[in-house]
């Protein structure tokens, strides 16, 4: 990696400094921009996903799905949003007002915080912290506390059961998730997400982590599906048993927070799967190789813009493949029982992920060239 690609931050700050601002002021003006962009992008992603979920579900059931609100029903998420924002915000009697309000916020915020470390390109992320992946796992562990809060604060037995289940499920599946991520970290010698992608981008599709971490990839997918509470593992909100689990009593904006949070979580999990195992923003053939074929120098501004756009597109395409898989899986497999869920988590995924970690470590010692020595 010789080029640094586009560095929007530096160009923005130098532009402001040239206008006569102090470096501190320029930095302070820069800081909210990527955050705002990320929040908007994540929200837009969620809107696209809710529409996709409806359309793909409809197609899987041989229906048409939303088709009246705008062309192909694309305005349905906006209608959803308006509906949820204008609905009455109900506080059930004898509910704990503090926990009841804090719960959805604690579910919603960590997911959006996690988008801090999701890279879309060399410099196209909010902050490239050295403990990126660790930050992600640690932050997403806050979520079950919010779920437990909202379940406990609702003064409703279904909510309480849903909250407890959510906590049990999150704790059980966090371990295999973290262990499978750890194997990837072991190979890339670092916790930062950019480093993980760069380690995979040498040979295009051949150097992606899926080929070196097939077991870890499957474990990550299953665990991520359980973490996001999608259908084979949607016990916390199992509607046939628990009405709607921890968000039974919620309506209006607080319910919208849960809704947004759960879809943002799925998008985050898909993005992370793309970043950790499918080479993040890297194209099937490395952009550097294509540039060399075409005889374009790497510091060509058009090439850099093209590469950045391609990177964002690739990340999104890879992520949406997982979103599609999750929706497809939703209409394929029935919901597991709570004992089956914990069985799968503790008796299958955990030992297998340990074996995977040990195997990765052994292979790294044996073939340091292939497994990031």
């Amino acid at each position, binding site marked *: 990696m010789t080029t640094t690609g586009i560095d929007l931050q530096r160009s923005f700050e130098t532009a402001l400094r040239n206008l006569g601002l102090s470096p501190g002021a320029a930095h302070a003006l820069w800081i909210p921009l990527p955050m705002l962009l990320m929040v908007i992008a994540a929200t837009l992603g969620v809107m696209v996903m809710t529409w996709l979920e409806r359309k793909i579900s409809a197609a899987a059931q041989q229906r048409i799905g939303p088709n009246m609100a705008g062309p192909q029903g694309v305005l349905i998420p906006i209608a959803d949003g308006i509906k949820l924002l204008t609905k009455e915000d109900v506080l059930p009697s004898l509910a704990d007002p503090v926990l009841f309000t804090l719960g959805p916020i604690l579910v919603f915020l960590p997911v959006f915080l996690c988008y801090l470390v999701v890279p879309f390109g060399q410099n196209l992320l909010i902050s490239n912290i050295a403990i990126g992946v660790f930050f992600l796992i640690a932050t997403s562990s806050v979520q079950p506390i919010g779920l437990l809060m909202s379940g406990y604060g609702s003064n409703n037995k279904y909510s309480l059961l849903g909250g407890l289940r959510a906590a049990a499920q999150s704790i059980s599946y966090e371990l295999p998730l973290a262990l499978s991520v750890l194997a990837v970290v072991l190979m890339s010698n670092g916790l930062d997400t950019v480093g993980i992608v760069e380690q995979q981008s040498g040979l295009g599709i051949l150097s992606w982590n899926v080929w070196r971490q097939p077991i870890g990839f*499957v474990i990550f997918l299953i665990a991520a599906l359980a973490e996001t509470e999608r259908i084979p593992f949607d016990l916390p909100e199992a509607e046939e048993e628990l009405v709607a689990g921890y968000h039974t009593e919620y309506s209006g904006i607080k319910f919208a927070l849960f809704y947004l949070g759960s879809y943002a979580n799925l998008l985050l999990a898909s993005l992370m799967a793309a970043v950790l195992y499918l080479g993040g923003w890297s194209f099937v053939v490395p952009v550097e190789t294509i540039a060399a074929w075409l005889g374009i120098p790497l510091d060509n501004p058009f090439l850099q813009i093209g590469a950045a756009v391609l990177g964002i597109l690739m990340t999104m395409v890879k992520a949406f493949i997982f979103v599609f898989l999750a929706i*497809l899986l939703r*209409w394929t497999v029935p919901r597991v029982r709570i004992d089956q869920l914990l069985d799968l988590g503790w008796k299958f995924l955990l030992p297998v992920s340990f074996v995977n970690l040990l195997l990765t470590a052994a292979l790294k010692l044996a073939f340091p060239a292939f497994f990031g020595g």
Partner: protein
Amino acid sequence: MTFLKRVGEYVSDAFKAAKYIGQGMGVVFDHMNRRPVTVQYPFEKLIPSERFRGRIHFEFDKCIACEICVRVCPIDLPVVDWVYNTELKKKELYSYSIDFGVCIFCANCVEFCPTNCLSVTEDYELATYDRHELNYHQVALGRLPSKVTEDPMVTPLREFAYLPKGVIDPHDLPAGSQRAGKRPEEILAEMKAAKEKEAKATAEQPA
């Protein structure tokens, strides 16, 4: 050795489970390429079958106010308002009403009406803003039903049993295609032919 064998079985079980889930996903994926089977209601409507029991039609002039319909109704629903005319020595009907918010559409009244002044229609779109509007008086009951096939706004679709053999999609049927099996008039003609043949055979037989 037994431990290794158990591990091997465990692994093969896991692979089998993964294989079955994969197969299931294949089936679901295949469904995404199929044409939707749903009827796009306000634009497409199913043609009700011949024996469909919809809104009840009432002919005021035929009614003799015998109140049989009330007696056979499971909930005595029809309201028959009449007065005995001493001059004519006849019951004179003032008004007749059925509340379709309460009616269960069993059509017992139609079945037992001695003068056939009641009949069932294929109307089923009875939605109103107020449930009291469902209480139809004799004028509302006397309105003729609209046919789905004659509505220019609606694409009429045949029900499943009325599709040709092997066809499950009511869209884009070739013109003149018939449902599976024989039509009642065909069966009738066949029966008639068979009877004639039999009669001929008995006549020709030497006694």
